[in-house]
């Protein structure tokens, strides 16, 4: 069921992948992309360029129309329905539309990701509090998700994505509704995961997230990869300065 076609340090491998939504929306065209374990990769590109579609292909929310997608040793196109959970457990995704359960509490929404892998209750509660603290949301612990502001919802969805310490984190526009200060907290969280060896893909429009880093930035344009900003494949970039502390550049 799992085909180890790529070298062991490659965790995401896309070979000539295309995705056409019916009837003829070419969201992704002929993309090849290799991501190594522990890397941070930024996806940018205009609205509608295909960033979300790419992330959805990786988490098997869509099947590729053409090409091969290999994630953590699973060939997406051949993964049988009953084994999808094995792939999904290695991936934590913060969706662009959050996908929170509106009438459940914040804690429940985060816990759900840990419950499905049978974590003990005490662990779940500890981890939830820890994440909420890190994202400045502890006072919303027992609030229902529909009563949160959009920015708060976004943070809950990020917390859920990373709760289970997955091998791969896919973050789709994780700071679109966040102010600079809160963005900083999120960046720190990703940074911390990066130090633990998590592979992180971030689709974003926020230049301040990647402008002062030397992580790989991939720009999509009409479903194709455009001249990549940096092709640095080195894996030990934890030592280097990564995210900018605050996006408020002194230009006013």
């Amino acid at each position: 069921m799992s085909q180890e076609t790529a070298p062991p340090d490659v965790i995401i491998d896309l070979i000539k992948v295309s995705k056409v939504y019916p009837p003829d929306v070419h969201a992704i065209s002929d993309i090849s992309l290799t991501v190594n374990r522990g890397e941070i990769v930024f996806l940018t590109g205009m609205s509608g360029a295909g960033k979300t579609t790419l992330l959805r292909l990786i988490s098997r929310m869509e099947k590729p129309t053409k090409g091969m997608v290999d994630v953590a040793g699973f060939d997406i196109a051949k993964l049988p329905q009953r084994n999808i959970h094995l792939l999904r457990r290695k991936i934590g995704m913060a969706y662009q539309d959050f996908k929170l359960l509106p009438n459940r509490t914040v804690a429940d929404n985060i816990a759900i990701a840990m419950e499905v892998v049978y974590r003990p209750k005490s662990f779940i509660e500890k981890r939830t509090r820890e994440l909420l603290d890190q994202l400045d949301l502890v006072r919303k612990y027992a609030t229902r998700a529909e009563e949160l502001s959009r920015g708060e919802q976004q943070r809950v969805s990020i917390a859920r994505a990373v709760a289970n310490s997955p091998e791969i984190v896919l973050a789709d526009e994780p700071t679109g509704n966040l102010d600079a200060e809160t963005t900083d907290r999120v960046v720190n969280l990703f940074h911390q995961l990066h130090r633990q060896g998590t592979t992180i893909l971030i689709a974003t429009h926020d230049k301040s997230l990647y402008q002062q880093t030397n992580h790989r930035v991939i720009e999509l344009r009409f479903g194709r990869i455009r001249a990549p900003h940096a092709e640095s494949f080195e894996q030990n970039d934890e030592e280097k300065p990564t995210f900018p502390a605050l996006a408020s550049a002194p230009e006013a």
Partner: protein
Amino acid sequence: MRFLAVVLRHTCRNLLFTWKSQIMTLFTVSLSVLIFSFFYLIYSNALHISDDLDDDLRLIVYLDEEPGLALKEEYQRKILKFDQVDRIEFISSQQAFKRFEQQLGDNRDVLSGVPADFLPSSIEVYPVRSLDSLSRIKRFSDYLSTLPGVLKVQYGKEWIERFYAFVQLMRVVVILSGTLLIMTTTFMVAHTIRLTLLARQQELELLRLVGATNNYIRMPFLLEGAFLGFLGASCGIAALLLLFNWIKLQFAGPTTLTLLPFTFFSWPIILSIIGIATLLCAAGSFSTTRRILQL
């Protein structure tokens, strides 16, 4: 072990969390079971009722003379070979006369000058107590009149035909009401499941996305369905029992009660109804998750 604990916890939480739509479902199931078993009860009692009514439905075969023993046996053989015949009874002239005297009651002295054998002897044929046999009574009576020595076959023709039509109509009413109700019920249960699923779809999709196994998603639905099915069926049967007793009270008059021996289901039937409802609900809940598992 842990799986079971988690699934049980989930089931309980779901039940608590969505108690509004659960009660809706419970009500639907109860109503459906009530409706179904109500018609089943009427059906299973329908034959008994007609049993008691067709006591009057005997055919009287008038003979031209008192039959001898051999002839009696001959008649017995020829008539009893029909399935629809329950029993036959020979009435001699004397017996007929005595009955007539009794019928006249206080006026019996009017018969004082009449010879005791002025009424012909006869055979009374009691058909089997079933609705079907009624429909064939006419042909049967025609057959009987072809037997040797038979003067005339008499039966409450009009009355039987009326009764037959009435029973037939009653039967059509029950069948049609039953069909309508069962259609409605099916429709309603499907509707309720659709509604419930709509409310939960988001949750199921999310569970799928965060890596829940198929069983993790389905088991709570299975348990929930079984629970609701069991509870709903029990409530339905209980409601029917109440109704049944209410009807009995309505017929509490001294004679009518005994005339219509209306009985409730036996335990095995009750248990099978509850069992089937439980199974159906569990299966229904279980299978509705199929589409979502494809995600």
